């Protein structure tokens, strides 16, 4: 056995917080061998990111690490930053989740790429520029000669992540730590980035540490996997073995967490709740106070959809495809043209105040369970705000009772209703948001990526909850998501959107098993829906000899 390039022994990370000391990582051991891809898997709060942050000496100021981290025999813990900089940025590099914020918006990417080269590699400016172009070529950025002088905002998310990878590769590192490198990207871009990483590893022979919650990614790309839970490694081993025979119940739960099951179709005679024809949304960017050039962007271009009671229409597409805009347009939250009928009323001629009484029947659940709850109101107040608006005659006491009922309906402890949103976890917050939508007994609920910000196991619970609520109340759902696994588990009918248009529509069955459009096929291929037992696990890249 070769000597590991990075050996972590009995690593402890603690944070000093307002409520005492938080023990985030509890004495874990990890080994990264040369040329190997290792995945660290866990849900949010498992300490997977903090482990690698402490290796890089990047812990927040209120945190500290104890134990031992050895890079080829050199101890890293306790090194002063100046000494640590001999390793990080050159031998150990890291790429982060958010490509939008990890590049400095004020500098051209060439400048940012050259920085590690001139500081660590000791190159001259012109040599660094040459190398930067090579690196851009390496990460397959088209036309690197020109792109080297772009600013970060001129690039797409995927391109930025490529630049980040190029930056990390600048000094031929031994270990590349990738902290959820693809989570913020669209599925198709995700697949390209992962493929790039695998290819680079093959060519450059470095080790990659993958921090992720996405088991599909792990299964395809990692040689070995560590599963972390609440600061401890609960299971580790060869990826294939771990997946085919998980021993620890937590690992089993993670693997099992893909939303499963299909929705029962609504009764054939269900009446149409919402019928939208030829919906168009155009955004105008005005050229300031004194006129100027007007730009128009058609975000939704002639989309029609109709939902019956008890039916779910899934809207699938990448970011920028106009799916969220469509959801808001049919609820008349955005100015739109076309025809939208709710039951037997035409919604288009109604203005804001005329829409208000109808809002109780048309609800919306948002993606971000942290942003969609007002931080200064209690959970109970948030849930009952709709009652305050639509049934002002209800007494405070009755409202409180209704809040408790609503909490129970979404399977939350009703005694928590006087807590504030920040005291709940992401999944619990999403339940509160669902309770807020359900308390008015709506007829149509637009679910705008309600599960994307949640861990897989929580996603599953939310999907189950949504299905149960739909059954109990005969709700019509418009389910907007980029996550095909969740869409498949919830929808009767699916629309695939691309740049504002519907490119394909059909029943869930048709779309997943006989996709007609290449775009749809790409989406499905990129989503690694390999937990489905009747599908082949796909081609996993061959593990490198180590």
């Amino acid at each position: 056995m070769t000597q590991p390039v990075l050996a972590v022994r009995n690593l402890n990370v603690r944070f000093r917080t307002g409520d005492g000391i938080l023990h985030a990582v509890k004495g874990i051991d990890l080994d990264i061998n040369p040329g190997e891809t290792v995945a660290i898997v866990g849900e949010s709060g498992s300490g997977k990111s903090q482990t690698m942050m402490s290796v890089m000496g990047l812990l927040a100021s209120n945190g500290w690490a104890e134990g031992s981290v050895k890079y080829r025999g050199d101890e890293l813990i306790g090194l002063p930053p100046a000494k640590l900089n001999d390793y990080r940025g050159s031998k150990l590099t890291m790429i982060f989740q958010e490509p939008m914020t990890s590049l400095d918006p004020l500098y051209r990417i060439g400048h940012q790429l050259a920085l590690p080269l001139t500081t660590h590699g000791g190159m001259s400016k012109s040599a660094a520029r040459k190398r930067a172009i090579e690196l851009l070529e390496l990460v397959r950025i088209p036309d690197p000669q020109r792109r080297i002088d772009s600013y970060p905002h001129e690039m797409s998310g995927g391109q930025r992540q490529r630049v980040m990878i190029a930056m990390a590769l600048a000094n031929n590192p031994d270990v590349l730590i990738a902290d959820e490198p693809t989570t913020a990207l669209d599925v198709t871009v995700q697949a390209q980035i992962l493929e790039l990483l695998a290819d680079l590893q093959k060519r450059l022979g470095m080790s990659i540490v993958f921090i992720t919650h996405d088991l599909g990614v792990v299964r395809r790309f990692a040689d070995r996997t560590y599963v972390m839970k609440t600061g401890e490694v609960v299971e580790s081993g060869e990826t294939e073995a771990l997946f085919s025979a998980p021993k620890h119940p937590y690992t089993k739960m993670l693997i099992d967490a893909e939303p499963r099951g299909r929705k029962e179709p609504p009764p054939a005679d269900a009446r149409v709740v919402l019928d939208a024809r030829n919906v168009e949304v155009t955004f105008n960017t005005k050229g300031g106070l004194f006129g100027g050039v007007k730009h128009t962007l058609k975000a939704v271009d002639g989309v029609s959809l109709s939902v019956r009671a008890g039916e779910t229409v899934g809207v699938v597409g990448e970011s920028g495809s106009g799916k969220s805009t469509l959801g808001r347009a049919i609820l008349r939250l955005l100015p739109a043209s076309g025809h939208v009928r709710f039951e037997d009323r035409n919604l288009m001629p109604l203005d804001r105040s005329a829409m208000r009484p109808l809002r109780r029947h048309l609800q919306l659940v948002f993606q971000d369970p942290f942003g969609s709850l007002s931080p200064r109101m209690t959970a109970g107040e948030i849930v009952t705000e709709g009652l305050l608006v639509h049934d002002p005659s209800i007494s405070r006491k009755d409202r409180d009772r209704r809040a408790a009922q609503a909490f129970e309906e979404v399977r939350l402890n009703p005694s928590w209703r006087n807590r504030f949103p920040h005291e709940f976890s992401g999944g619990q917050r999403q339940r509160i948001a669902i309770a807020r939508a359900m308390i008015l007994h709506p007829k149509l609920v637009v679910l705008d990526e309600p599960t994307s910000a949640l861990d897989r196991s929580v996603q599953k619970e939310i999907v189950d909850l949504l299905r149960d609520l739909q059954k109990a109340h005969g709700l019509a759902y418009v389910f907007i998501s980029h996550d095909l696994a969740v869409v498949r588990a919830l929808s009767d009918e699916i629309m695939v959107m691309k740049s504002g248009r519907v490119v394909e529509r059909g029943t869930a069955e048709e779309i997943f098993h006989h996709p007609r459009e290449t775009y749809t096929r790409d989406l499905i291929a990129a989503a690694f829906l390999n937990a489905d037992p009747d599908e082949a696990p796909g081609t996993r890249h061959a593990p490198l000899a180590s």
Partner: protein
Amino acid sequence: MAEGAVLPVETLKDTVVGRSLWVEARSRLLRNKAAVVSIGLLLFIAIACIFGPFVTGHPFDRVYPDYVRVPASLESYPKADQVEPQIERIGSRVRGKPENITVTGDTVRVTLVGQRPIDERLLAYFERSDLFQAAKVVERADEGRRLVVDVPLKKQYFFFGTDTNGRDLLTRTMKAGQISLAIGLLATFVAILIGVVYGATSGYMGGKVDLVMMRIVDVLYSLPFIFFVIMLVVFFGRNFVLMFIAVGAVEWLDMARIVRGQTLSIKRQEYVQAAEALGVETRGIIRRHVIPNTLGPVVVYMTLLVPKVILLESFLSFLGLGVQEPNTSLGVLISEGAKNIQGAPWMLIYPSITLVTILFCLNFIGDGLRDALDPKDR
């Protein structure tokens, strides 16, 4: 996961009371030593300013002609070297030459020798002086030409000294503190009330409404402040209420801009969109969702605005546009002190220390609040 468990209805009764963000911010603030000390000190100053004038024994506008510009001292007045010249002066009025002046404890024994019999009614001059109480004749000789008189000293304390008119500076500093703090708090309150409502409305409405409302603010901004105050003073005369209006009318502009900026970012938050989707009216959204979430920065700005307003008031008073005699403010006191810096430095030092302490405290509190309300810390 435990969060999904359905719980029995009995739990309905005893609800868990959540810790609001305010409660958490308070606990963070209380861990900040500088802020806690500042709060304590500021409270002490405020209480001293409010109740102090009743305790010092000197009304703030009482003039002591015999104690003009006496220096600060922890010991009581009159001092030994003041007694003799004062008795000489009184003696000349009583038409008796003072001899054998002996001070024993709190009384002075003096022998007055006149060429003619001394009118004992004239001994009232002793009582009229700020130094002595009523005199008592102990012994008469030579048909009243020679009087031995016992005069008890009137003990007075001037811890901060007195001003050019012979008024107790401690009491006046307290009175000034009262007025400065009152102006600081009230003008700030006015500024915040107008600023928050105006800014939140402008920011939330957006579009043309926002454009017009903010241009009004810009126009008001461009008015020179001093010119504005002089104009108000010319039209309405100098008075206390005018100070609030003048300062408040200028300071709300900043507040409105800050709150508008906050509102613009809050407006795009999903919880505001969620409220819109629920059909909440504009007023309800501004009141329940926008304003409570802008209050963090507002509170911080408030603690920084109070010292700013106090300074503004001091500045106006320094120029002679502020409060009127016999009322006073820290700015007035400092202005007078500055004129007398050579002969009576205490007149500058003590009011300045008071002002500086108040400003420091408020700034530390503001700093502490900013840290406590910082969302990054959550």
